[in-house]
């Protein structure tokens, strides 16, 4: 279970302080599929970064399985990101010098798994997202939808409980977006917690629960 307690994040942009999150209290159950919607600047991405252990709160806390992530060291946070969380970005963010297989294998590499086992696991993930014929393709040789599926395979490579998507369909066409949502639904059926930020109402409608954000607050 993921829980935020009075989660507040303040950024400093030069002289100006920006309140990205204000006292956010949110509970996400294991196995839930939740969509967070809201206009840009509402704090959706910041909330995802907090839950995804990419950033630390200014005050309040994020608890994942009752562990307060604010109290963990950088290394421990990296381990949570590696083992428990799979992150999918709007811009795919694949490493462009590596092919699909190597990109997917990268998180497993950071986990220190032996090469043969690592490549086998990476290949399985690519098959799972339907890219068995794109294994040795570089990102530049694939369509946006395909790249995003590689990114999903990468997010899944260490078998995480939580999959986080920051506008995962924001950079692909509708058809590819639907394919991506199909995959995410499938992952949810496997029992994984799915958290997606979007401003596409059709996408949000496919989630089990929708939360709306505005001005750094979660609306009821």
């Amino acid at each position, binding site marked *: 279970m993921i829980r935020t307690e009075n989660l507040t994040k303040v950024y400093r942009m030069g002289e100006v302080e920006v309140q990205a999150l204000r006292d956010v209290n949110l509970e996400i159950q294991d196995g839930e599929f939740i969509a967070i919607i809201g206009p840009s600047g509402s704090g959706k991405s910041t909330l995802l970064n907090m839950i*995804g252990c*990419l950033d630390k709160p200014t005050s309040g806390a994020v608890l994942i399985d009752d562990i307060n992530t604010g109290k963990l060291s950088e290394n421990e946070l990296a381990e949570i990101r590696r083992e428990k969380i799979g992150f999918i970005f709007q811009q795919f963010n694949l490493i462009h*010098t590596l092919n699909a297989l190597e990109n997917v294998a990268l998180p497993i*590499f*950071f986990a220190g798994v032996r090469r043969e086992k690592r490549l086998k696991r990476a290949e399985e993930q690519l098959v799972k997202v339907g890219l068995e014929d794109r294994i040795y393709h570089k990102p530049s040789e694939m369509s946006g939808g395909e790249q995003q599926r590689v990114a999903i395979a990468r997010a899944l490579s260490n078998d995480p409980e939580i999959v986080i998507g920051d506008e995962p369909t924001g950079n692909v066409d509708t058809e590819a977006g639907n394919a991506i949502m199909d995959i995410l639904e499938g992952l949810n059926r496997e029992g994984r917690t799915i958290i997606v930020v979007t401003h596409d109402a059709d996408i949000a409608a496919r989630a089990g629960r929708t939360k709306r954000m505005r001005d750094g607050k979660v609306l009821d």
Partner: protein
Amino acid sequence: MKDAFLLVYRNIKERKTRSILTMLGIVVGIAAVIAIMSISYGMQESITEQLSEMADIIMVTPGSVELGSFGDFGSLNERDLKDVERIQGVKEAAAMIGEIEEVEYRGEMFMMQIIGIDPRDMDAVFGETVKLEEDSGSETGASGRELRENDHKVCEIGYSIARDYFDDEIGVNDRLTINGSKFRVVGVLEKQGGFRSGVDSQIYVTKRDAVNILDTADISTIFVRVRDIGEAEEIAAEIEERIDDNHKLDDFTSAMAMGGAIEDLESIFGILQVFLLAIASISLIVASLGIMNTTLMSVMERTHEIGVMKAIGAKNRNILFLFLMEAGLVSVVGGVLGCIVGIVAAKAISFGIVAIFGVEIAAIVRPEVLLGGIAVAVLVGILSGLYPARKASKMSPVEAVRYE
């Protein structure tokens, strides 16, 4: 490890020109060190090889060494020679009479150093090292013969005198005029060069002839060979004491043990070597700055990528390792190439020295120097990569991901 290597290799390849330029810095630095080391080992060996044949020699000359030995410091005499021969530990002592005289050959005239010596003492002075020139045409395989005890008005000449001084080459049985007297050449000596290049322009006659034509019986140098090189310094001191006593003067003579000179020369050489290495190291420092700069740029350019890697679970040390490896790889390859270039350069320099100065100096490439060179390259690479790599590893994942 293989994937890390691949990742790093592709990043390097992507910035080929920059990586090659950075690498060149290391190549030049390491090559300079290798070439300098190899040539100086070669010099050292050629010097010690030439000198070690003289290690058991003590050279006794009038006057102190500091002021030079062929001035008007008086001269040694037969009594000095007898006394030196009687000193314990002295194997042989040979007296030489030396003067500069006019030498004429087929109408040309030069001033040459004439050395008068007992033929039986030739070996004591020259040992095994100075031989007659080879001549496959003659029965003995050598150019003429050595001086003999009963020889009258004959001489052995150095290589340069035979070949270089006069327009016409001088061969065995040719006749020279030394200070007005005709001498027949009986032997031509092999080319010496290096430390013994003096021999190449000397004319050797019997002591008896020397006394006649030079009009002096004064001994200019006594060559002493000792039985035990370890005692050379003590024997030299004793020689000085005896001869000074004979002449009732302090510091009348100087006896120099060549063994000591070798040690002096070697320590001078050591200093020279350190100095040259210090200069070569400057290029390594410059190379190190190059690596640091390239790695820093690489870190900046890949900020976004670093953020992504962190987001998908890379720990700080994973990132540190990748960038250290990048810097390390460039410098290892640079180091290996530097070794190759260094060896080639050393050989070329050695060849050049032979061609220009006629002195044989081999390029001695020692495996430990090569290994050391590569080790230094790796060390330079890792040390200069450390700061950029740490910078990369400490980046905040959110900010890095957001960076485009």
